[in-house]
Protein backbone atom coordinates (compact mmCIF):
# COMPACT_ATOMS: atom_id res chain seq x y z
CA UNK A 1 0.00 0.00 0.00
CA UNK A 2 1.24 3.50 -0.82
CA UNK A 3 1.41 6.51 1.47
CA UNK A 4 0.80 10.03 0.16
CA UNK A 5 4.38 10.37 -1.04
CA UNK A 6 4.09 7.01 -2.79
CA UNK A 7 1.01 8.19 -4.70
CA UNK A 8 2.88 11.36 -5.67
CA UNK A 9 5.90 9.30 -6.82
CA UNK A 10 3.71 7.13 -9.04
CA UNK A 11 2.01 10.16 -10.58
CA UNK A 12 5.40 11.79 -11.19
CA UNK A 13 6.12 8.87 -13.55
CA UNK A 14 3.28 10.12 -15.77
CA UNK A 15 4.91 13.51 -16.33
CA UNK A 16 6.75 14.02 -19.61
CA UNK A 17 9.49 16.47 -20.56
CA UNK A 18 8.12 19.66 -22.11
CA UNK A 19 4.87 19.61 -20.19
CA UNK A 20 3.21 22.40 -18.25
CA UNK A 21 1.56 20.85 -15.21
CA UNK A 22 -1.03 22.14 -12.74
CA UNK A 23 -0.91 20.50 -9.32
CA UNK A 24 -3.84 20.82 -6.92
CA UNK A 25 -3.71 21.17 -3.16
CA UNK A 26 -2.72 18.19 -0.96
CA UNK A 27 -1.18 15.02 -2.41
CA UNK A 28 -0.89 16.58 -5.91
CA UNK A 29 1.46 19.27 -4.57
CA UNK A 30 3.90 16.51 -3.54
CA UNK A 31 4.30 15.37 -7.16
CA UNK A 32 6.76 18.22 -7.81
CA UNK A 33 9.18 16.65 -5.32
CA UNK A 34 9.60 13.53 -7.46
CA UNK A 35 10.26 14.94 -10.93
CA UNK A 36 13.68 13.72 -12.13
CA UNK A 37 16.46 16.31 -11.87
CA UNK A 38 16.98 18.10 -15.16
CA UNK A 39 13.61 17.21 -16.70
CA UNK A 40 12.15 20.25 -18.47
CA UNK A 41 8.79 20.64 -16.74
CA UNK A 42 7.06 23.82 -15.55
CA UNK A 43 4.50 23.93 -12.78
CA UNK A 44 1.55 26.29 -13.08
CA UNK A 45 -0.33 27.52 -10.07
CA UNK A 46 -3.66 29.07 -10.96
CA UNK A 47 -3.21 32.09 -8.73
CA UNK A 48 -0.74 33.34 -11.31
CA UNK A 49 2.67 31.72 -11.74
CA UNK A 50 4.35 29.44 -14.25
CA UNK A 51 7.71 28.09 -13.13
CA UNK A 52 6.85 27.50 -9.50
CA UNK A 53 9.83 26.42 -7.41
CA UNK A 54 10.21 24.76 -4.00
CA UNK A 55 9.34 26.35 -0.65
CA UNK A 56 11.67 29.24 0.28
CA UNK A 57 14.52 28.92 2.75
CA UNK A 58 13.55 29.90 6.23
CA UNK A 59 13.64 33.68 6.50
CA UNK A 60 13.23 34.23 2.75
CA UNK A 61 9.42 33.95 2.62
CA UNK A 62 7.70 36.58 0.49
CA UNK A 63 4.04 37.34 1.27
CA UNK A 64 3.59 38.33 -2.39
CA UNK A 65 4.75 34.95 -3.70
CA UNK A 66 2.39 32.08 -2.94
CA UNK A 67 0.78 29.09 -4.65
CA UNK A 68 -2.93 28.31 -4.99
CA UNK A 69 -2.81 26.64 -1.56
CA UNK A 70 -1.67 30.00 -0.15
CA UNK A 71 1.70 28.49 0.77
CA UNK A 72 4.86 30.55 0.40
CA UNK A 73 6.88 29.37 -2.62
CA UNK A 74 9.79 30.43 -4.81
CA UNK A 75 10.04 31.11 -8.53
CA UNK A 76 12.40 29.15 -10.83
CA UNK A 77 14.60 30.87 -13.42
CA UNK A 78 12.33 31.59 -16.41
CA UNK A 79 9.24 31.89 -14.24
CA UNK A 80 6.46 34.32 -15.11
CA UNK A 81 3.62 35.93 -13.17
CA UNK A 82 0.23 36.76 -14.63
CA UNK A 83 -3.30 37.71 -13.64
CA UNK A 84 -6.13 35.26 -12.90
CA UNK A 85 -7.88 35.73 -16.26
CA UNK A 86 -4.66 34.89 -18.12
CA UNK A 87 -4.10 31.96 -15.79
CA UNK A 88 -7.46 30.44 -16.64
CA UNK A 89 -6.94 31.20 -20.32
CA UNK A 90 -3.96 28.82 -20.04
CA UNK A 91 -6.20 26.25 -18.36
CA UNK A 92 -9.39 26.62 -20.42
CA UNK A 93 -7.40 27.06 -23.60
CA UNK A 94 -5.74 23.68 -22.98
CA UNK A 95 -2.20 25.02 -22.86
CA UNK A 96 -1.56 22.98 -19.72
CA UNK A 97 -0.74 19.34 -20.51
CA UNK A 98 -1.51 17.70 -17.19
CA UNK A 99 -3.78 18.48 -14.25
CA UNK A 100 -3.45 16.54 -11.00
CA UNK A 101 -6.06 17.08 -8.32
CA UNK A 102 -7.62 15.46 -5.30
CA UNK A 103 -11.19 14.20 -4.97
CA UNK A 104 -13.76 13.11 -2.43
CA UNK A 105 -15.49 10.83 -4.95
CA UNK A 106 -14.88 9.61 -8.49
CA UNK A 107 -17.50 7.77 -10.53
CA UNK A 108 -17.07 5.02 -13.11
CA UNK A 109 -18.22 7.43 -15.85
CA UNK A 110 -15.44 9.91 -14.98
CA UNK A 111 -17.51 12.30 -12.86
CA UNK A 112 -15.67 13.92 -9.96
CA UNK A 113 -16.86 15.52 -6.70
CA UNK A 114 -14.45 17.47 -4.52
CA UNK A 115 -15.86 20.83 -3.43
CA UNK A 116 -18.86 20.49 -1.18
CA UNK A 117 -20.53 18.29 1.45
CA UNK A 118 -24.09 19.68 1.78
CA UNK A 119 -24.83 20.98 5.26
CA UNK A 120 -21.32 20.21 6.51
CA UNK A 121 -18.53 21.64 4.46
CA UNK A 122 -18.76 24.38 1.87
CA UNK A 123 -15.37 25.75 1.05
CA UNK A 124 -15.98 26.39 -2.61
CA UNK A 125 -14.67 24.96 -5.85
CA UNK A 126 -11.81 27.40 -6.36
CA UNK A 127 -10.33 26.62 -9.75
CA UNK A 128 -11.28 22.94 -9.77
CA UNK A 129 -14.35 23.28 -12.00
CA UNK A 130 -12.44 25.25 -14.63
CA UNK A 131 -9.59 22.74 -14.50
CA UNK A 132 -11.68 19.59 -14.88
CA UNK A 133 -13.97 21.07 -17.53
CA UNK A 134 -11.13 21.88 -19.88
CA UNK A 135 -8.08 19.76 -19.16
CA UNK A 136 -7.36 16.99 -21.67
CA UNK A 137 -5.38 14.93 -19.22
CA UNK A 138 -6.66 14.75 -15.65
CA UNK A 139 -5.20 12.46 -13.00
CA UNK A 140 -6.94 12.20 -9.65
CA UNK A 141 -4.71 11.57 -6.64
CA UNK A 142 -6.54 10.28 -3.59
CA UNK A 143 -7.00 7.54 -1.04
CA UNK A 144 -9.08 4.64 -2.36
CA UNK A 145 -11.45 4.79 0.63
CA UNK A 146 -12.55 7.54 3.03
CA UNK A 147 -11.86 7.72 6.75
CA UNK A 148 -14.91 5.55 7.45
CA UNK A 149 -13.47 2.89 5.14
CA UNK A 150 -16.07 3.50 2.40
CA UNK A 151 -15.08 3.36 -1.23
CA UNK A 152 -14.48 6.67 -3.04
CA UNK A 153 -14.63 4.85 -6.39
CA UNK A 154 -18.35 4.74 -7.02
CA UNK A 155 -21.01 3.76 -9.59
CA UNK A 156 -22.09 7.42 -9.39
CA UNK A 157 -21.10 10.36 -7.18
CA UNK A 158 -23.35 11.12 -4.22
CA UNK A 159 -21.84 14.56 -3.53
CA UNK A 160 -22.37 17.69 -5.66
CA UNK A 161 -20.30 17.35 -8.83
CA UNK A 162 -17.23 19.33 -9.75
CA UNK A 163 -17.20 18.06 -13.33
CA UNK A 164 -18.80 15.43 -15.55
CA UNK A 165 -17.10 12.60 -17.40
CA UNK A 166 -13.68 14.20 -17.16
CA UNK A 167 -11.38 11.93 -15.14
CA UNK A 168 -9.18 9.60 -17.20
CA UNK A 169 -6.91 8.08 -14.58
CA UNK A 170 -6.94 7.68 -10.79
CA UNK A 171 -3.91 6.88 -8.65
CA UNK A 172 -4.73 5.76 -5.12
CA UNK A 173 -2.92 4.16 -2.22
CA UNK A 174 -4.03 0.79 -3.65
CA UNK A 175 -3.94 1.04 -7.43
CA UNK A 176 -3.72 2.83 -10.75
CA UNK A 177 -7.07 2.74 -12.55
CA UNK A 178 -8.16 4.11 -15.91
CA UNK A 179 -11.72 5.23 -16.56
CA UNK A 180 -13.30 4.43 -19.92
CA UNK A 181 -16.51 2.96 -21.28
CA UNK A 182 -18.31 3.46 -17.98
CA UNK A 183 -15.96 1.43 -15.80
CA UNK A 184 -12.77 1.53 -13.76
CA UNK A 185 -10.05 -0.51 -15.47
CA UNK A 186 -7.38 -1.83 -13.15
CA UNK A 187 -3.94 -0.97 -14.53
CA UNK A 188 -1.50 -1.56 -11.67
CA UNK A 189 -1.51 -2.74 -8.07
CA UNK A 190 0.33 -0.88 -5.32
CA UNK A 191 3.21 -2.85 -3.82
CA UNK A 192 1.88 -5.66 -1.60
CA UNK A 193 -1.78 -5.07 -2.50
CA UNK A 194 -3.83 -7.88 -4.02
CA UNK A 195 -6.41 -7.61 -6.78
CA UNK A 196 -8.99 -8.86 -4.28
CA UNK A 197 -8.27 -5.99 -1.88
CA UNK A 198 -8.66 -3.48 -4.70
CA UNK A 199 -11.91 -5.08 -5.84
CA UNK A 200 -13.24 -5.01 -2.27
CA UNK A 201 -12.43 -1.29 -1.96
CA UNK A 202 -13.99 -0.36 -5.31
CA UNK A 203 -17.77 0.14 -5.24
CA UNK A 204 -18.02 1.07 -8.92
CA UNK A 205 -17.75 -1.34 -11.85
CA UNK A 206 -14.20 -2.70 -11.96
CA UNK A 207 -12.69 -4.38 -15.00
CA UNK A 208 -9.78 -6.63 -14.07
CA UNK A 209 -7.45 -7.79 -16.86
CA UNK A 210 -5.76 -11.19 -16.75
CA UNK A 211 -2.46 -9.70 -15.65
CA UNK A 212 -2.24 -6.79 -13.21
CA UNK A 213 1.39 -5.74 -12.72
CA UNK A 214 2.66 -4.29 -9.48
CA UNK A 215 3.73 -0.61 -9.59
CA UNK A 216 7.43 0.09 -9.81
CA UNK A 217 8.18 2.68 -7.16
CA UNK A 218 11.67 3.35 -5.93
Amino acid at each position, binding site marked *: MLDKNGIAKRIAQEVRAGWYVNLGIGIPTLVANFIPEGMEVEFQ*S*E*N*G*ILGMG*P*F*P*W*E*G*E*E*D*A*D*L*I*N*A*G*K*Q*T*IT*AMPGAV*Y*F*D*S*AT*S*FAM*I*RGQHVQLTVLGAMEVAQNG*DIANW*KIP*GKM*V*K*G*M*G*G*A*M*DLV*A*SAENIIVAMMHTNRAGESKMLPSCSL*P*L*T*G*VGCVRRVVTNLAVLDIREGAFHLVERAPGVSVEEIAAATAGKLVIPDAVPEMRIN
Partner: protein
Amino acid sequence: MAISKVVNGSIAACDGVKSGMTLMLGGFGLCGIPECSIGELVRLGIKDLTCISNNAGVDDFGLGLLLQQRQIRKMISSYVGENDEFERQMLSGELEVDLIPQGSLAERCRAGGAGIPAFYTPAGFGTEVAAGKEVREFEGKPHILESALTADFAFVKAWKGDTAGNLIYKATARNFNPMMAMAGRITIAEVEELVPEGTLNPNEIHTPGIFVQRIFQGERYEKRIEQRTVRNRETASNA
Protein backbone atom coordinates in the same frame (compact mmCIF):
# COMPACT_ATOMS: atom_id res chain seq x y z
CA MET B 1 -0.30 66.20 -19.58
CA ALA B 2 -1.42 63.05 -17.78
CA ILE B 3 -4.58 63.18 -15.68
CA SER B 4 -3.75 62.99 -11.97
CA LYS B 5 -5.67 60.40 -9.97
CA VAL B 6 -3.98 61.06 -6.67
CA VAL B 7 -6.02 61.37 -3.50
CA ASN B 8 -4.65 61.87 -0.03
CA GLY B 9 -5.02 58.54 1.76
CA SER B 10 -7.70 55.93 2.28
CA ILE B 11 -10.31 58.29 3.81
CA ALA B 12 -10.39 60.51 0.73
CA ALA B 13 -10.18 57.46 -1.54
CA CYS B 14 -13.32 55.87 -0.07
CA ASP B 15 -15.44 59.01 -0.40
CA GLY B 16 -18.87 58.03 -1.75
CA VAL B 17 -18.77 54.36 -0.76
CA LYS B 18 -22.17 53.66 0.81
CA SER B 19 -24.19 50.90 2.40
CA GLY B 20 -25.85 48.52 -0.05
CA MET B 21 -23.22 48.93 -2.73
CA THR B 22 -21.44 46.23 -4.72
CA LEU B 23 -17.70 46.22 -4.20
CA MET B 24 -14.89 44.28 -5.84
CA LEU B 25 -11.76 43.58 -3.82
CA GLY B 26 -8.59 42.19 -5.39
CA GLY B 27 -6.39 39.55 -3.84
CA PHE B 28 -5.94 35.79 -3.61
CA GLY B 29 -6.12 34.63 -0.04
CA LEU B 30 -4.35 37.43 1.82
CA CYS B 31 -1.95 38.03 -1.07
CA GLY B 32 -2.43 41.35 -2.86
CA ILE B 33 -5.46 42.50 -0.87
CA PRO B 34 -6.23 46.23 -0.47
CA GLU B 35 -5.43 46.34 3.25
CA CYS B 36 -5.74 50.10 3.71
CA SER B 37 -9.08 50.37 1.92
CA ILE B 38 -10.50 47.45 3.89
CA GLY B 39 -9.44 49.23 7.08
CA GLU B 40 -11.32 52.34 5.98
CA LEU B 41 -14.44 50.34 5.02
CA VAL B 42 -14.45 48.86 8.54
CA ARG B 43 -14.09 52.37 10.02
CA LEU B 44 -16.93 53.73 7.86
CA GLY B 45 -19.21 51.03 9.28
CA ILE B 46 -21.26 50.82 6.10
CA LYS B 47 -23.52 47.76 5.84
CA ASP B 48 -25.36 45.45 3.44
CA LEU B 49 -22.41 45.23 1.11
CA THR B 50 -22.13 42.80 -1.76
CA CYS B 51 -18.46 41.87 -1.97
CA ILE B 52 -16.93 40.24 -5.03
CA SER B 53 -13.60 38.76 -4.07
CA ASN B 54 -11.96 35.41 -4.78
CA ASN B 55 -11.74 34.64 -1.05
CA ALA B 56 -13.17 36.00 2.18
CA GLY B 57 -9.99 36.57 4.17
CA VAL B 58 -9.33 34.89 7.50
CA ASP B 59 -11.18 35.48 10.76
CA ASP B 60 -9.18 38.51 11.83
CA PHE B 61 -7.69 39.88 8.62
CA GLY B 62 -8.72 40.93 5.13
CA LEU B 63 -12.45 40.65 4.41
CA GLY B 64 -12.79 38.74 7.68
CA LEU B 65 -12.69 42.15 9.37
CA LEU B 66 -15.82 43.25 7.48
CA LEU B 67 -17.50 39.93 8.25
CA GLN B 68 -16.78 40.35 11.96
CA GLN B 69 -18.72 43.64 11.91
CA ARG B 70 -21.56 42.05 9.86
CA GLN B 71 -21.01 44.58 7.10
CA ILE B 72 -21.34 42.06 4.26
CA ARG B 73 -24.75 40.86 3.10
CA LYS B 74 -23.55 38.82 0.15
CA MET B 75 -20.23 37.33 -0.94
CA ILE B 76 -19.40 36.33 -4.49
CA SER B 77 -16.28 34.16 -4.34
CA SER B 78 -14.70 30.94 -5.56
CA TYR B 79 -13.22 29.65 -2.31
CA VAL B 80 -14.13 30.61 1.24
CA GLY B 81 -12.34 28.09 3.45
CA GLU B 82 -10.02 29.25 6.24
CA ASN B 83 -12.65 31.49 7.82
CA ASP B 84 -14.77 30.13 10.69
CA GLU B 85 -16.89 33.26 11.10
CA PHE B 86 -17.71 33.15 7.39
CA GLU B 87 -18.76 29.51 7.62
CA ARG B 88 -20.90 30.26 10.67
CA GLN B 89 -22.70 33.19 8.98
CA MET B 90 -23.21 31.18 5.80
CA LEU B 91 -24.58 28.05 7.46
CA SER B 92 -26.89 30.15 9.68
CA GLY B 93 -28.22 32.00 6.64
CA GLU B 94 -27.07 35.46 7.78
CA LEU B 95 -24.75 35.69 4.82
CA GLU B 96 -25.75 35.06 1.23
CA VAL B 97 -23.01 33.32 -0.72
CA ASP B 98 -22.60 32.84 -4.44
CA LEU B 99 -19.77 30.42 -5.17
CA ILE B 100 -18.48 30.46 -8.73
CA PRO B 101 -15.55 28.76 -10.43
CA GLN B 102 -12.37 30.78 -10.12
CA GLY B 103 -11.74 31.07 -13.85
CA SER B 104 -15.34 32.13 -14.44
CA LEU B 105 -15.02 34.73 -11.69
CA ALA B 106 -11.87 36.16 -13.25
CA GLU B 107 -13.40 36.18 -16.73
CA ARG B 108 -16.70 37.68 -15.52
CA CYS B 109 -14.76 40.58 -14.03
CA ARG B 110 -12.65 40.94 -17.15
CA ALA B 111 -15.81 40.85 -19.30
CA GLY B 112 -17.44 43.48 -17.08
CA GLY B 113 -14.51 45.79 -17.64
CA ALA B 114 -14.20 45.00 -21.33
CA GLY B 115 -17.82 45.65 -22.35
CA ILE B 116 -18.66 42.00 -23.01
CA PRO B 117 -22.03 41.24 -21.38
CA ALA B 118 -21.67 37.45 -21.23
CA PHE B 119 -19.62 34.53 -22.50
CA TYR B 120 -19.79 30.73 -22.73
CA THR B 121 -17.48 28.54 -20.69
CA PRO B 122 -17.31 24.77 -20.15
CA ALA B 123 -16.57 25.26 -16.43
CA GLY B 124 -19.43 24.13 -14.23
CA PHE B 125 -21.46 22.35 -16.89
CA GLY B 126 -23.42 19.50 -15.29
CA THR B 127 -22.94 20.93 -11.78
CA GLU B 128 -24.94 23.16 -9.40
CA VAL B 129 -23.20 26.13 -10.95
CA ALA B 130 -25.07 25.56 -14.21
CA ALA B 131 -28.52 25.77 -12.59
CA GLY B 132 -30.74 28.20 -14.49
CA LYS B 133 -28.03 29.05 -17.02
CA GLU B 134 -28.29 28.70 -20.77
CA VAL B 135 -26.41 25.69 -22.15
CA ARG B 136 -25.05 25.64 -25.68
CA GLU B 137 -22.83 23.24 -27.55
CA PHE B 138 -19.77 24.42 -29.43
CA GLU B 139 -17.78 21.82 -31.39
CA GLY B 140 -19.73 19.08 -29.66
CA LYS B 141 -18.93 20.24 -26.14
CA PRO B 142 -21.52 21.79 -23.78
CA HIS B 143 -20.89 25.26 -22.36
CA ILE B 144 -22.83 27.50 -19.97
CA LEU B 145 -23.54 31.19 -20.35
CA GLU B 146 -21.94 33.34 -17.67
CA SER B 147 -22.68 37.05 -17.33
CA ALA B 148 -20.26 39.90 -16.75
CA LEU B 149 -19.68 41.40 -13.31
CA THR B 150 -19.19 45.06 -12.50
CA ALA B 151 -19.03 46.97 -9.24
CA ASP B 152 -19.84 50.40 -7.84
CA PHE B 153 -16.32 50.51 -6.47
CA ALA B 154 -13.34 48.26 -7.13
CA PHE B 155 -10.48 48.19 -4.63
CA VAL B 156 -7.12 47.01 -5.88
CA LYS B 157 -3.65 46.82 -4.45
CA ALA B 158 -0.48 47.30 -6.50
CA TRP B 159 3.24 47.35 -5.77
CA LYS B 160 4.03 50.56 -7.65
CA GLY B 161 1.77 53.16 -9.16
CA ASP B 162 2.23 56.57 -10.67
CA THR B 163 0.17 59.72 -10.32
CA ALA B 164 -1.60 58.90 -13.61
CA GLY B 165 -2.92 55.65 -12.06
CA ASN B 166 -0.67 53.27 -14.00
CA LEU B 167 -0.01 50.17 -11.91
CA ILE B 168 2.63 47.46 -11.58
CA TYR B 169 1.95 44.44 -9.37
CA LYS B 170 4.49 42.23 -7.65
CA ALA B 171 4.70 38.47 -8.16
CA THR B 172 1.48 36.56 -7.41
CA ALA B 173 -0.05 39.59 -5.69
CA ARG B 174 -1.35 40.49 -9.17
CA ASN B 175 -4.09 37.80 -9.28
CA PHE B 176 -7.58 39.38 -9.57
CA ASN B 177 -6.46 43.00 -9.26
CA PRO B 178 -6.09 43.82 -12.98
CA MET B 179 -9.57 42.56 -13.95
CA MET B 180 -11.25 44.17 -11.00
CA ALA B 181 -9.52 47.46 -11.80
CA MET B 182 -11.22 47.27 -15.21
CA ALA B 183 -14.64 46.36 -13.83
CA GLY B 184 -15.11 49.08 -11.22
CA ARG B 185 -17.22 52.11 -12.07
CA ILE B 186 -14.84 53.82 -9.66
CA THR B 187 -11.58 51.99 -9.13
CA ILE B 188 -9.46 52.82 -6.12
CA ALA B 189 -5.84 51.70 -6.24
CA GLU B 190 -3.63 51.65 -3.19
CA VAL B 191 0.09 51.20 -3.78
CA GLU B 192 3.17 50.50 -1.74
CA GLU B 193 5.11 53.08 -3.70
CA LEU B 194 3.50 56.09 -5.40
CA VAL B 195 5.80 57.73 -7.95
CA PRO B 196 5.51 60.78 -10.25
CA GLU B 197 4.20 60.27 -13.79
CA GLY B 198 6.99 59.44 -16.21
CA THR B 199 8.87 57.41 -13.61
CA LEU B 200 7.51 53.97 -14.51
CA ASN B 201 8.60 52.32 -17.76
CA PRO B 202 5.50 52.29 -20.02
CA ASN B 203 6.60 48.88 -21.32
CA GLU B 204 6.23 47.35 -17.90
CA ILE B 205 2.86 48.66 -16.73
CA HIS B 206 0.24 45.97 -16.00
CA THR B 207 -2.86 48.14 -15.49
CA PRO B 208 -3.16 51.28 -17.62
CA GLY B 209 -4.23 54.34 -15.61
CA ILE B 210 -7.44 54.74 -17.63
CA PHE B 211 -8.94 51.99 -15.44
CA VAL B 212 -8.06 53.79 -12.21
CA GLN B 213 -10.02 56.77 -10.87
CA ARG B 214 -8.25 57.26 -7.54
CA ILE B 215 -4.80 56.26 -6.33
CA PHE B 216 -3.15 56.68 -2.98
CA GLN B 217 0.01 55.77 -1.13
CA GLY B 218 -0.84 52.96 1.28
CA GLU B 219 0.77 52.71 4.65
CA ARG B 220 1.70 50.20 7.35
CA TYR B 221 1.26 47.14 5.18
CA GLU B 222 1.03 44.03 7.27
CA LYS B 223 1.11 41.58 4.31
CA ARG B 224 0.19 38.63 6.41
CA ILE B 225 1.22 35.15 5.27
CA GLU B 226 -1.55 32.56 5.40
CA GLN B 227 0.52 29.37 5.08
CA ARG B 228 4.17 29.87 5.93
CA THR B 229 5.94 26.95 4.26
CA VAL B 230 9.76 26.87 4.26
CA ARG B 231 12.76 24.64 3.70
CA ASN B 232 15.10 24.30 6.60
CA ARG B 233 18.80 24.81 5.69
CA GLU B 234 20.04 22.45 8.38
CA THR B 235 17.68 19.63 7.44
CA ALA B 236 18.52 20.15 3.78
CA SER B 237 22.27 20.03 4.32
CA ASN B 238 21.98 16.92 6.49
CA ALA B 239 19.91 15.08 3.90
